[in-house]
């Protein structure tokens, strides 16, 4: 490190090192050193040039990245709020299950809970392998079956276990339309899931509310049977939601669905019951299953 106590710094033709210049840029040098360093920099073209380079690097990092934050923020806040109400599940809780097949979804091999991740799988209960493989003409099923506790106050569901003896009712199901690109699917999914997370519990008891949804009476029995195959969540809360309503999707990278969202899958086989997850499968079977938890 440059010895700034050396009064011959300039005369000797020495230069400031990066650490001093960087600290000078940040105004983090002691007053005396700052004066010496600043004086040298103003007189030395080489150090001035280096200061400009390091300053430009700092400026580049200072520019905040942009993103579509609103949907993300809603999801993250919803997950955090749910976490405030739902304690972390104890070890040995039941494994996360595919809402359609009822089979366990393979837990991510991370050794710690991943509360905010889409659980992604291909096939029925077969773990996905994020990677380059692309799904072609996958059928995307998006909708919801909410198994609710009849008569429970609307606001009381989120984060609370359903009472013993709760009855089940099919409430939500919606189609998101058709997509030809992963980007458009993802954008729509995010907005829809955020909307469901924001208003889902309020829409549960009576099947009303502001969630963009409709009753899918024709498939109610089928979907209820599918969710009935899912073991109860930890505590008294039951399986909450299954999305269903096929649309066509072409050329979607499997990895699209590995991005994080609210999830129930824990790597240690426990269920976090924080919100929503998706499952992607190929060719005619369910492509996206999302679960709304409370």
């Amino acid at each position, binding site marked *: 490190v440059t010895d700034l106590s050396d009064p011959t710094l300039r005369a000797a033709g020495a230069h400031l090192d990066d650490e001093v210049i960087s600290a000078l840029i*940040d105004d983090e040098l002691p007053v005396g050193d700052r004066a010496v360093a600043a004086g040298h920099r103003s007189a030395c073209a080489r150090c001035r040039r280096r200061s400009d380079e390091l300053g*430009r690097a700092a400026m580049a*990092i200072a520019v905040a990245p942009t993103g579509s934050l609103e949907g993300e*923020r809603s999801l*993250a806040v919803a997950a955090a709020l749910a976490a405030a109400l739902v304690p972390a599940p104890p070890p040995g809780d039941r494994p996360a299950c595919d809402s359609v097949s009822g089979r366990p979804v393979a837990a991510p091999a991370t050794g710690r809970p991943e509360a905010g991740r889409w659980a992604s799988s291909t096939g029925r209960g077969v773990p996905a392998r994020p*990677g380059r493989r692309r799904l072609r003409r996958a059928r995307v099923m998006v909708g919801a079956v909410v198994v609710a506790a009849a008569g429970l106050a609307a606001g009381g569901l989120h984060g609370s276990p359903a009472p013993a003896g709760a009855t089940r009712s099919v409430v939500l199901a919606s189609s998101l339309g058709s997509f030809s690109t992963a980007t458009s699917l993802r954008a729509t999914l995010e907005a829809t899931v955020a909307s469901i997370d924001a208003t889902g519990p309020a829409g549960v008891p009576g099947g009303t509310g502001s969630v963009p949804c409709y009753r899918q009476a024709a498939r109610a029995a089928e979907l209820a049977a599918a969710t009935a195959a899912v073991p109860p969540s930890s505590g008294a809360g039951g399986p909450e939601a299954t999305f269903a309503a096929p649309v066509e999707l072409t050329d979607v990278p499997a990895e699209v669905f590995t991005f994080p969202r609210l999830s129930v899958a824990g790597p240690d086989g426990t269920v976090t019951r924080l919100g929503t997850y998706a499952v992607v499968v190929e060719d005619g079977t369910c492509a996206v299953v999302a679960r709304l938890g409370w």
Partner: protein
Amino acid sequence: VDQVTAGGAATVAGVSDEDLALIRLVRAGDRRALEALLHRHYPRLWAVCRQMTGHDADASDATQNAMIAIVRGLPGFDGRSRFATWAYRVAVNASLDEIRRRTRRATDPLDETTLPVVAGADQGIERVQVDAALRRLPPDYRAAVVLRDLCGLDYAEIAEVLEIPPGTVRSRISRGRAALVPLLDGEQAGARSRPAGAATEAGGRR
């Protein structure tokens, strides 16, 4: 400059008045206050995670985990540091966890098509360059540089967040910026086509 609380929030005992008020309400059981607190800090925490991970989805993952950790850790927050500083620590740790997970998953290198779209072609290229350059920086350097240049923390605060001596902060910031200079100025073309190096992603530095 506290960029999170910028806008006139004065500080008392290291915590902005507004944060302090919200935290007080949260402790009294006010869930809306908790939501407001989380909403208030989300953008900056996401930005930290985004710069740290270099990837939108990973950043969302890390941010969400950070938010959950913040909620769960809030009862233990003692107010000796600013809430934002404490939250940054959580976000950085969540990002480092995410980076480690990403390394284990051996995910394909970031596809350029998944990079965020920003206004203007020139800005878009710059974002790509910044992302690529940051990904090639060891995470320890990255954290120090991001906390300084994006979050505006001073060296003492960064030392507190990263739990390292101030001298190490100064060294990491300097080395991080020095490493970024060639990446941003001339080698970005190569950086864009190269995967994030496992050595840099996993490496620890003084």
